[in-house]
């Protein structure tokens, strides 16, 4: 199994205007004015930690689906705390590969208030020899 080093290091990052500006510049967004709806992707460390716990081979990992549900506006200078859990896991074996489907849910909390929920689906297609 290979885990790319330094893949994500979001602990301790508050939502600053500089981070928002950098995100908007990186996404070439022309019409977003506030904190982008997908900005919470920065806070996926707890999700990636779960995938590491599941011994996912990152080179075969594909992000299949993402959903965000927003309950309250995000605010500058606050750091969302992300708590992720695996909500479903399936495996399908074929002759030459093993396909794993992993669904996670992440609660994003600011000041003890649930501000958003993230739902992710990942697919890992590992050749049988590597699985």
């Amino acid at each position: 199994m290979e885990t790319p080093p330094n893949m994500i290091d979001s602990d301790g990052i508050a939502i600053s205007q500089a981070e928002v500006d950098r995100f908007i510049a990186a996404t070439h967004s022309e019409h977003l004015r506030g904190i982008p709806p997908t900005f919470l992707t920065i806070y996926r460390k707890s999700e990636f930690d779960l995938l590491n716990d599941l011994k996912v081979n990152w080179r075969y990992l594909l992000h299949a689906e993402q959903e965000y549900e927003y309950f309250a506006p995000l605010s500058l200078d606050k750091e969302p705390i992300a708590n992720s859990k695996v909500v479903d896991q399936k495996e399908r074996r074929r002759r030459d590969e093993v396909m794993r489907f992993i669904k996670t849910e992440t609660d994003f909390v600011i000041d003890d208030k649930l501000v958003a929920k993230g739902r992710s689906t990942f697919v890992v297609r590992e050749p049988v020899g590597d699985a």
Partner: protein
Amino acid sequence: MEVGQDLQPITRTPTREQLRAYAESSRDRNPIHIDDGFARDKAGLPGVIVHGMLSMAFLADLVALNFPEAEWELCRFRARFRKVAFPGEALSCDGTVRDIDPDGLVQVAVSAKNPAGEITTDGVAYLRRK
């Protein structure tokens, strides 16, 4: 605003430089997005691929163009990453108002297509007037 109404479309063409900038900004430094050698030799891909979340960000920009943040609140946003996208490929992003429920919740279907017309990402945004 009515059901069936098409959104004003946008086009985005991600570059390798953009993938590197996005990897730094999003903290998603999976090498399949930034290292051609890794993508080819280790992951069996033709080369680096666009972050799914970057494609979702393009669709978020499409939604913001058509539903300005000053007037609309995004309640829920879902994307499915159906086919990998590659840097240098123009992604045509468009959408259609799919439903408006009695409470005023607007459901908008959105998608990004590659130059072959294949959907690489599709999704749904749920919005409400502020």
